[in-house]
Structures are given as structure tokens and as C-alpha cells.
């Protein structure tokens, strides 16, 4: 085989700069609140502005990657994996990170869980239709999610899981079967959407056998415009009404319903 000259990747020559401020490496998130102003002062003196700029960039990248997978970001993870020895000036770094998200991307870092310090990125730009290139390429599950959010919304914010499954079944999306577009529907709804914080799937206490209920998740609360949802619901209210009536639906009705929903969903 031919000889290959391999240059050492730059990532390996990055030297870890030990800061004068010694913070416990096993820090959990709690230590963020115990930083003194003298620690902050010393940290500012220890790191050059280039280094701090670099840290800001790394945090932005970290958050973007997590957000791409719709995983909420824990402050503790940012500290452990990215900020590390710069922890004393994390507030300054995070402020600059938030400004970057706003000024460059039009995104907003929002704390959805103030107790555990968990963040998501939400879009400050409105979704619009008629884009030549989609901002959300290839995600059919959005439609599925919106149907469920709508049903929960219309029913007052909490519904028993059976109602969701019955609604979906009437749309020919059976949680028991593998769907050609969504795959394992039950898993998508009860696991994926819940992990992404779009839905909450909670045990109803004192039920035997165990029953669950659905609510809107924290991300849905922040991201989904209730006004837009009302418009969506308004466009299909008759359809949803029909779905929950005791009237037997013929095949034709189901086709009509599905196509009306699909048309409305495209506008979201």
C-alpha cells in the first residue's frame, strides 16, 4: 500500500489550560451557584479573550448539535462537556451564547425547566409555507404530532391515552401495527415525542390496570403557537367532530378526512 503521510490532527495538539481557579471536577450542576465574584475576576484574568471567544463558539456548536436531534440541553452537560475549567465565567459565556443565537440565527434559548436548568432552542422566525427549500426537510411526524396536540387542546389539556389511539386508528394509523411512514407509532408517540418534550405521558394514579394520560409537553408549550393551532383546529373542527361521533364512518369519509387534514397540516 502507498505510504501515507498523516499530519497530526489539530485537535490532538490542543493543550488543556489549567486555570488558577480550581473547581471540583466532579461538579454537578449545583456548583454553578457557588461561584464567588473573586473567582470570576481571576477567571477573567486567566483566559484571553480569544480563548473565551472560542468557548462561546464551542457552546453554540454543542447546543446546535443537541437541538438538531431535538434533545433538550441540560446546563450540567454544557458545564461538564464544554465549559469545563471556564465554569467561573459561565454566566458571561452563556450571555454571549444567547446573543449569538439571537443575532446570527434568529433562535432563542429558553429554559423550559428552571429547577433542573434544562433548555431548548426555539425559533424566533415564523414558519411559512411556499419555501423553495424546506426549513424542516423530510419530517412527516410533524403532522402526526399536530393531530395529537390538537385533540389534547380541544379536550381541555388532558386526555386519556385511549382517545389518542382511537383518533389515530380512524385516520388509518394503528398504534398496534407498523406504519409505512411513521414506523412503530406507539413508540414514536409515547417515547420519541415525550423525550423531545412535545408530549407528556403520565400514569394515572390508582388505576388498575394502569392507564396513562397525555398532556402537552414543555416544548410544545413554548414552540407551538396556540393561535396557529386554533386556526388549524378551526379548519378541521368538523372533521375532528366527526371522528368522535358515534356515526359509522365509511371508507370514503376516512379518505376525505385524511386529505383535509393533510392539506391543513401542510400550512403549519
Amino acid at each position: 500500500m502507498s505510504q501515507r503521510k498523516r499530519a497530526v490532527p489539530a485537535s490532538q495538539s490542543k493543550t488543556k489550560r489549567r486555570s488558577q481557579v480550581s473547581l471540583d471536577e466532579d461538579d454537578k450542576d449545583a456548583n454553578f451557584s457557588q461561584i464567588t465574584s473573586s473567582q470570576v475576576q481571576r477567571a477573567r484574568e486567566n483566559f484571553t479573550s480569544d480563548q473565551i471567544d472560542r468557548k462561546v463558539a464551542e457552546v453554540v456548536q454543542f447546543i446546535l448539535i443537541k437541538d438538531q436531534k431535538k434533545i433538550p440541553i441540560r446546563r450540567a452537560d454544557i458545564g461538564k462537556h464544554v465549559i469545563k475549567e471556564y465554569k467561573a465565567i459561565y454566566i458571561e459565556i452563556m450571555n454571549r451564547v444567547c446573543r449569538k443565537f439571537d443575532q446570527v440565527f434568529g433562535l432563542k434559548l429558553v429554559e423550559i425547566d428552571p429547577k433542573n436548568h434544562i433548555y431548548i432552542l426555539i425559533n424566533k422566525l415564523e414558519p411559512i409555507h411556499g419555501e423553495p427549500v424546506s426549513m424542516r426537510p423530510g419530517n412527516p411526524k410533524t403532522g402526526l404530532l399536530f393531530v395529537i396536540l390538537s385533540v389534547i387542546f380541544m379536550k381541555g389539556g388532558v386526555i386519556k391515552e385511549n382517545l389518542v389511539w382511537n383518533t389515530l386508528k380512524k385516520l388509518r394509523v394503528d398504534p398496534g401495527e407498523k406504519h409505512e411512514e411513521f414506523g412503530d407509532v406507539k413508540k414514536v408517540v409515547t417515547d420519541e415525542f415525550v423525550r423531545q418534550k412535545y408530549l407528556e405521558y403520565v400514569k394515572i394514579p390508582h388505576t388498575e390496570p394502569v392507564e396513562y394520560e397525555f398532556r402537552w409537553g414543555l416544548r410544545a408549550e413554548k414552540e407551538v403557537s396556540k393561535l396557529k393551532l386554533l386556526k388549524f383546529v378551526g379548519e378541521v373542527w368538523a372533521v375532528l367532530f366527526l371522528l368522535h361521533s358515534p356515526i359509522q364512518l365509511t371508507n370514503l369519509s376516512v379518505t376525505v378526512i385524511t386529505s383535509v387534514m393533510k392539506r391543513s397540516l401542510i400550512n403549519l
Partner: protein
Amino acid sequence: MSPPMGDSHKRFLQTMMSNGIISASQAAALHKHCCETHGAHYVADRLDDFINIINAHLQSLFMHIRKGMSEEDGLEYYALVNVTETDITRMASDYADNELELFRKTMDLIVDSESGSASSTDILNCADSLQTKKLKKKETEHVLSKFVQDKWLNEKDGEYTLSVRCIVEMEQYMRTIYQDLIKVCHVCHNIALQCQMCENPICGIKVHLPCVARYFRARSDPRCPECSEFWPHEIPEIPQSQSQSSQNLPSSSKENTAPTPSRRSRRS
């Protein structure tokens, strides 16, 4: 100081982030759409100025919207790339260690080859001798299809080539790793994997197929630009600028694009 980013710029950037790479014609349409949506001053053909504003702001985040040419269809594309990485760590968050190792080995095979491609058989052999963790045949096939789906590789008839996204994103990394061992196009000076070569043993310059098409357009006696020996290879047709297809250059006898090698995007 660079002008601030408007909502039109942010929308463009967000779309780039979700798509990774878009064609030049998509970019032009997107530019128009973003400006019109936010009532920003729009000048057609000033796409590069528009993108330069975005890039000025992306600089401190070590990101960049870079233009590159596809070796397959000769068309230009815009990709959002990281500039910190001197390794393929851009992919690191999406793939396991052994999958990344397989990608590196596939890249080695492709760079080493005359055709600029690697057969699935050869890649399967590599999978069997990975240092991290061996991949079985079915796993390898699955990873390869992921690479294709994520637009890092192209596949045709069992042969794998590096996609335009891969080359635009990783050109720096590849030049560092392979140094003189990687072929470079004599016309546009970018990395050339799928190319034609001058048959003169003391010359041997390489030229991309689309660059050949442009350089030798309508010449009845094509000669090597370096040594003037007869160029024996079939001269492909000039790529259609409207075409979105990734097929080999479609045959079109009427084409307005002038052969201007100086317009080729130089590596910034």
C-alpha cells in the same frame, strides 16, 4: 464592521442548517424568498454578497457557507461547514467510532483509486479488519446507506464516491491528511477524485470531467493544457445550469455557459 444580519439572512442560515447543502439554483430561489418574506432589499445575482454578510457573522463561530462544484454533475452547491475541525469530527456526533473508522478507510480507498470510487466489495473487506470494532456485512451495508442518506457518499451500481457535501466540507482535512497524494484538478485547482488524466507519462495532469467539458468545449482537436499532447478521452457535454439531476452530464447541444475556468470557485 459588517452589517448586522437581518431576518432574511437568519432565515437563509436556518435553512442551510437543516439541509446541510443546497444547489446554487436552490440558493438563488431561497435568497429571493427570504428577502421577500422579510421585506429586505433584494437584488438578484447578489447572492454572494448576501452570503458574505452571513459569513462575516459566522466567522467567530468557526462556521462558513462555502461554495463548491460537484464532480458528478458539474453544478455549484452551497454547504454550511465547520472550519474548526481538522478531522472528520463533524460526523462524530452522528456515528459510532467504528463507523467513523470505516468512513476514513472508504475515503482512503477512494483517494487512492484511479476512478475516484470504491467498490462495496472492497469496503466490506475493510469492515472486516477495523481496529475499533469489526462490522458485519449487514451492519456495513446499513452504515453505507446511512452515509448516502446523510449525503456524505454517493452510490451507483455498487460503487461509492465522495459526495459534493463531503468534499466541500472536508477538503481541508483531506489536503492535510493526504498532502501530495491527493489528485488536484489542473483547471480549477480543487481536489479531483473523479477525473480524466493526461496520458502523457511525463505529464499526467488531472482534470475534473465538468472542467474538461468546459475547457474543451467545441474544440475539434483537444490538447492537454500543460504539455499539449492530444487529449484522448471522450469530452463530456457541458452541464445544464438548470438541471437538478445528479446523473452524468446530460447531453445538450445548445448551452450558453462559456468555458471560463477562472470562474471556478477557488478554495477560500
